[in-house]
């Protein structure tokens, strides 16, 4: 993580490492990064909130990302999200109250040819219907890590 010689411009790289290790950016981690790189905490916080990739909320035990890129949108991504909301009562960006499942959206995962697409952890699943989406999510949550 300190590969870049503690230089200020390594901020985003460092935040990537923290998020990869902890799943999200906690205030403590942010403070630590800012101090080590000698950048103002405000700048670190600014970068953390500016970029969509960073999250400051702890994720659920499992995360599911629905792609809302143009191709997925046209091929029915909104229906997938609606089905998930009906089943779990969570909107994009939210986690179920028991902390089991987080639902996120992505701008585009670049698998447009098999739209609509959802990513379950690292598993990209394409050509989904609303029913398949919910069934997949059920199996996904029930599955032990």
């Amino acid at each position: 993580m300190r590969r870049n010689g503690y230089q200020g411009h390594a901020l985003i790289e460092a935040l990537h490492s923290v998020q990869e290790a902890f799943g999200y950016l906690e205030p403590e981690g942010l403070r630590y990064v800012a101090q080590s790189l000698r950048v103002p905490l405000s700048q670190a916080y600014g970068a953390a909130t500016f970029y969509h990739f960073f999250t400051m909320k702890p994720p659920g035990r499992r995360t599911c990302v629905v792609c809302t890129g143009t191709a997925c949108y046209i091929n029915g991504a909104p229906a997938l999200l609606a089905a998930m909301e009906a089943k779990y009562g969570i909107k994009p960006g939210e986690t179920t109250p028991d902390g089991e499942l987080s639902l996120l959206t992505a701008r585009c995962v670049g698998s447009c040819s098999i739209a609509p697409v959802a990513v379950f952890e690292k598993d990209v699943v394409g050509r989904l219907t609303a029913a398949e989406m919910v069934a997949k999510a059920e199996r996904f949550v029930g599955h032990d890590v």
Partner: protein
Amino acid sequence: MTSEELQEITATEKEARARHPHHICVCTAAGCLSAGSGEVKKALDKEVLESGMKDECHVKGVGCMGLCSAGPLIVVDGAMYRDVKPDDATDIVRSLEDGKPVKRLACDTSAPFFTRQTRIVLENSGRIDPERIEDYIAEEGYAALLAVVTEKRPMEVLDQVIKSGLRGRGGAGYPTGLKWSTVAKASSSGQKYVICNADEGDPGAFMDRAVLESDPHRVLEGMAIAAYAVGASRGYIYVRAEYPLAVKHLRTAIRQAERLELLGNDIAGTHFSFKVEVRLGAGAFVCGEETALIASVEGKRGTPRPRPPYPAQEGLWGHPTLINNVETFANIPPILRKGGEWFAKIGTAKSKGTKVFALAGRVNNTGLIEVPMGIPLREIIHEIGGGIPGGRNFKAVQTGGPSGGCIPADHLDLPVDYESLAKVGSIMGSGGMIVTDDSSCMVDVAKFFIEFCMSESCGKCVPCRVGTTHLYHLLERISSGEAEERDLATLEELCDVVRNTSLCGLGQSAPNPILSTLHYFRDEYQAHVSEKRCPAGVCHMADQEVKA
């Protein structure tokens, strides 16, 4: 590394290939991978081992083959198979022994999808293993770089690029040769930088990802040649963190090239040095704008700044910086290898060469295509794309993502080049091409894009930050049937303000999807406003049932 050593590697590699009478290439780029090509490759590996053909058949993972909608794709001794399942491995390996191809899996490569393409950028894609530098070298890789640094002066390189007529493939189409000359001329006592823009933020576009995943060395070679021509010694590749496979392949490629001394200090025994680092983006569309991208590489929030000064004069840390798109760099090695004149013969008078498009949406063949500039849209959609599925009718094609526009059926004979697309209110863009049919509502599509621009606006300048939000609310009123006649006039007026007063490209082009749909599909807007109905049956009207 000298050119003799390079030839030696080529010879060894070709010899190694010839040792195996049979070759199976499995596409392991993201599209096929998510369709299950990883399992297919494992099954094939196992089958080859078990049937004792290890010395006769070589199975390798390769990059994107293009027709992603038929994935997983594999090529067995030149014959392409589609929709391959792990269970098919037995039949495939058996077919090698008796010499009869597996008919039920055959993919017809004489179809227009394959024959109408011209491959320059993607020439190696789907043929070489992106994780082995030797495979790239065997396809004349790095030959151009070595020839350039040992035999040519930087001016001669610039000359070839100018002659080629290559224009930036990131969307705006700025002449690459001119950009390079500006950076080369910029006086700098110290450092100059080369940045590769791989922050492919357009939703629905995956050209750069495919190039980086399938043939990463080509981009590195292009960057190194550029660095030599402009006098830079450091480079960055700014790539989206959302593309883990591309990042992995790039990092592997950089390591391999450094080991063979094709990157790093004193390349090919000359005094030319070039070091490349990968920088991860973090999901901000605005970072595709060059000044915002520079801010992000510096570790700051990605907000653009007014130009001039252009990055060519004052870029990264205030030094002259050359920024080009992935596809632009990928065009460089063949241009230097075959000459600028060869490249200038392809395409139209003002748009040279080929363009890679990511064809997606409501079309039968989706995937990655590379076509010569000037090809009519109709040919792309109805021949290469194979028409619209489900017997529905073509409605519009959207190019250029959130900065582009929708082109209706009347303009289908339009040749694809920078000027023609601009004339009908769209842009070439980076290469996303999304086809919609009559089940899509154009107001809804416009709303989708403006919602995107609204949330991606960095917030630095007022017209973009506030303007896009108001545009979104106006469209929301229209799509829910609450709008009045005068709202349409407000919409147009506001589009004009946002377009003309925003600081950077994001705001300036944000109204394009609205303006183009308003121009070609005004009747749809009118139906929403005065009749309170959505002709496509997509929008839910507030006060009445949806009429389809």
